């Protein structure tokens, strides 16, 4: 199973994708993914030669699966259990670094 053609991705493209995906990568990782992404994308390019109907209805759920039901809120009784998994918390809240500083206040 060899890639038919390698898709050469630039280092900048890989950096851009990693940024979009919110992944900090080392320079060694960057080189690794440049190679691996290129190989996989080169392989999957074969799909462009398959004749398809762009207007075809794309359906992946079997027809008898009905997604509709009453839209009802169910309370989750145990917020303590949810908060127990938080890396940082304060009483009944998740803690995160400050998003706003004084200069952004209206």
């Amino acid at each position, binding site marked *: *199973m*060899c*890639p038919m053609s390698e898709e050469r991705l630039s280092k900048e493209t*890989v950096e851009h*994708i*990693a940024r*979009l*995906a*919110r*992944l*900090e*990568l080392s320079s060694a*990782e960057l080189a*690794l*993914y440049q190679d*691996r*992404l290129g*190989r*996989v*994308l080169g*392989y*999957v390019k*074969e*799909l*462009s030669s*398959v004749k*398809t*109907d*762009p207007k*075809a*209805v*794309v*359906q*992946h*759920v*079997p027809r*008898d*699966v*009905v*997604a509709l*039901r009453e839209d009802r809120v169910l309370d*989750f009784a*145990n917020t303590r*259990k*949810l908060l*127990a*998994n*938080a*890396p*940082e918390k304060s009483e009944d809240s*998740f803690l*995160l*670094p*400050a*998003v706003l500083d004084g200069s952004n206040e209206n």
Partner: protein
Amino acid sequence: MKINEWNIDSLTGAYRKRSLSPVEVAKYCLSAIEKRGKDLNCFLQVREDAVLASAEDLEKKFNDKAKLPLYGVPIAIKDNFLVDGWQATAASKILQGYVSPYTATSVERLEAAGALIIGKTNLDEFAMGSSNENSAYGPVKNPWDTSRVPGGSSGGSAAAVAAHLCWGALGTDTGGSIRQPASLCGVVGLKPTYGRVSRYGVIAFASSLDQVGPFGRSVNDVARMMEAMAGYDRKDATSSRSVVPVYTESVARASAKNARFGVAKELLEGLDPEVRQSFDLLVQTMVANGAKVVDVSLPHSRYALSTYYLIAPSEASSNLARYDGIHYGYRSKGSRGELEQVYLKSRGEGFGPEVKLRIMLGTYALSAGYYDAYYGKANQVRQLISQDFVQAFEKCDCVLMPTSPSVAFKFGEKAADPLKMYASDVCTLPINLAGLPSVSVPSGLSSDKLPIGVQFVGRHFEEQRILDLAAAYEKLRGPFPIAPGVRE
């Protein structure tokens, strides 16, 4: 025969006669896990006290519960299912220490049927992999040959069942993650129709493909688990309302006579010669016992690998966006001060290499300017793959195909080349893309004494038919050998 070789019905029968108790069996499993499970690395968590407490509770409630179909049956759960009070790491560092606040519907239903949850099993990180080498907690070893992989991603579940450390196990199958390890470990594994078993409480990988299913040592054991857990769940929007049959009733009297099997030549290319031999022998056995075999054509299945590796990573990149270091899981110590740094560093340090690769693949395929050419196109090809099966099922009731192109391979053999590894799932991927049910059954051993499997694929929601035919084959095949070390 030692108790660990009994099937589920014999075990529950012995409980009902009071010749055996759930606590005795729980202790047996815990000691076997301690002796053998540690070496195989198939469990990520075993809570001895909780298991014994549950077994004692089952004993106390004998009068109410002994009639339940899975009363006291030890079942292992893949570590990407939530079970209240147990960890759920998905074999990722990013979820190390995560304790489930509630229980997945499938597990809840097994417990309601009397099952005893015995432990959480190892897997490829976030169920992404075909060898279990992608676990952040070390790979699982194949009980048939510990220098070889058990398959993946549900390698821990398959190995635990093959090594008789439990009577059954749950796995998830997105591209072959139940069937391929079942095949490599010599056990039965069922991937039900998409929508047949609730996905509620299962850590999402690719939501249009993920499906929950059972592992067992026989088709009947798998059918027992299925009838307990399948069916509508209001908490899963893709869960089907169609009626769940009592699978075991029909399985018991199954026969191959007059069955119409389809065989697709396209899917028999590139197989190990011994896998091909075993497949051909199975087909001959079925024909000799009254089944008919017709040629079917699945021409678009050759694009399944490319289609899958665009759709699954795309969905994964979206599903895994939730691991942000805020609500749960790993938060990088080096990210104090700025929110975006929390995301970048926590995710960069918390995810393993294959997961990062797939997140980036998906991000690329979904990004502006590429969406139509990659994700959009893949979905159109997916339709063609599905339509091929619809046409095939006009000529037959069940498609037969090998489960894996090879037997269990050595550690490291495919780890460096993603495409080589992805090709391990070439026989199973088309079935996920089409949303069909498929059960893998052991069909023989190679000259190296490694298991080979064949899958029986059915129409949507025809689990009954494929289980019946698989059971009919199982009877003709006779008892399958037990993995080395189990009887020692």
